[in-house]
């Protein structure tokens, strides 16, 4: 089995099927370490990424007015226990274009490995991008993942991201996303994480609502068990009339786990509004008792609540 096959046969761990990479209607890129082992583009999409000794580097551009019918699959990973993967990606969705990107990050045997993503994302006026990122880091907890992204959402554009790491061990994860939203733009950032063992999770997401009537939502769901730790920081600033933002963080802590949630809200205009809610604790008592009153044992009820929360 080739290294490529080793990686893509694990796509179901992040909710995708390997066969999708054989579909000629679907654009994809598979990056193994700093090598690009497979790629395909489709009309309206410029997928210009290159191998360098230190990183996979390049741009991905969805041309103006193009509506990509199928999601673009980006598959990154390492097939060895050790190693480093750097990705430097500039992603542009031009005016009135729309696309969906499914990014699969697979490190199935990592014991002392790193994955670093440095991305810029720009959405032109009226553009739309959904960026879903699913991670699987294997069972050993030996992965260090550092995704950083700087995102600008143009006038009337819509950006939605969804980061999930729900099976295997996290290892160390440090997300740092910053989003600027212009007039009538919308940014929705969701992160769902399950940490256990000695996992260490740090999520910092910042949304700056620069434009009139811009809107932002940061939603984080974290479940921690054993001795896992998480520090979640959600920042929303509203600078213009009609800007609306919300920060919503919920963490369930079990065993000896430890969690913190830091919502930071700033409002710089009298007609703007930012709200936040943060809750850390055990499973909600009323939810638990309701499910038990339907006959579920406590452990079944907790499993269902946690599964729902991270869905």
């Amino acid at each position, binding site marked *: 089995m080739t290294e490529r096959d080793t990686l893509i046969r694990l796509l179901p761990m992040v909710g995708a099927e390997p066969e999708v990479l054989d579909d000629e209607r679907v654009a994809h890129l598979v990056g193994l370490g700093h090598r690009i082992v497979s790629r395909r583009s489709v009309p309206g999409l410029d997928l210009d990424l290159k191998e360098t000794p230190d990183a996979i580097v390049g741009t991905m551009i969805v041309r103006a007015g193009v509506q990509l019918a199928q999601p673009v699959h980006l598959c990154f990973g390492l097939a060895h226990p050790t190693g480093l993967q750097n990705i430097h990606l500039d992603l542009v969705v031009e005016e009135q274009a729309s696309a969906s990107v499914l990014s699969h990050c697979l490190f199935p045997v990592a014991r002392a490995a790193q994955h670093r993503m440095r991305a810029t994302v720009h959405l032109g006026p009226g553009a739309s991008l959904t960026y879903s990122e699913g991670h699987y880091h294997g069972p050993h907890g030996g992965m260090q993942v550092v995704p950083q992204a700087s995102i600008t959402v143009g006038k009337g554009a819509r950006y939605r991201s969804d980061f999930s790491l729900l099976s295997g061990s996290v290892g160390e994860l440090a997300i740092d996303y910053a989003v600027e939203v212009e007039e009538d733009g919308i940014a929705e950032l969701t992160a769902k994480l399950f940490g256990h063992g000695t996992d260490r999770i740090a999520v910092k997401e910042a949304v700056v609502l620069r434009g009139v009537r811009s809107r932002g939502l940061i939603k984080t769901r974290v479940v921690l068990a054993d001795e896992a730790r998480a520090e979640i920081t959600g920042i929303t600033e509203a600078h213009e009339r009609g800007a609306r933002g919300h920060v919503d963080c919920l963490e369930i802590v079990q065993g000896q786990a430890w969690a913190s949630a830091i919502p930071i809200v700033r409002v710089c205009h009298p007609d703007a509004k930012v709200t936040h809610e943060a809750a850390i604790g055990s499973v909600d008592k009323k939810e638990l*008792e309701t499910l038990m009153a*339907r006959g579920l044992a406590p452990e079944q009820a907790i499993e269902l609540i946690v599964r729902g929360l991270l869905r």
Partner: protein
Amino acid sequence: MASPLLRIHNLTFAVEGRTILDRLNLAIEPCEIHALLGANGSGKTTLAYLLMGCEGYRPTGGTVIFAGIDLLTLPIHERAKLGLTLAWQEPARFEGITVREYLTLGHAGGDPEWLLKLVGLDPDRYVDRLVDKTLSGGERHRIELASVLAMKPKLAILDEPAAGIDMLSIHQIIEVIRALKAQGSAVLLITHQEEVATIADAASQLCNGHIVCTGSPSLVIERFRGRTCVRCDGEACGYDRT
């Protein structure tokens, strides 16, 4: 004579020296709809939580025998497995759990589409929705009733099942309660709404943590409406209907 399905004897519950339930006695027969009326703060919901075994609700005295078994020693899920369940006055909301999943929890249950129709919700619109805060209070109440129906309990405790339901739809809630009885369930029906209470086979009035009257629904409703109470002379029963 057969034993009642539920027999509560001298049930007492106090918190920080304040007695909430005071030597309460009540019996419910199989397949009986028993309405429980009482002013705010009279102890109705406390009784429901005690019977279900919710955290923080442990009686300070008395016994509860359900289907011949001492209920008070059991955790919630074991009470549920015996055939007891509770529909909360303010039902919980669950992120990521669909109505279909909720109506097929841990039991054989019925067909979710059929259950939704029974509670007056369009299955096509609701079966794949989440049981979360996007549902209105009335919608959530109906789904809670459907969930209770699906469980086919021996005894369902319904705490204000028509709360948040518009007047035009109350008849649907009444039909659900009748459907519970028709499938063989008894119902302890906690309600403020006389229209709902009238469908009961029997009723009791709770005042200051004590059952002060048990009889036909019409008798108990009349006494409740007239603020007639042998225990408090109507002072505590002065339910504010405005």
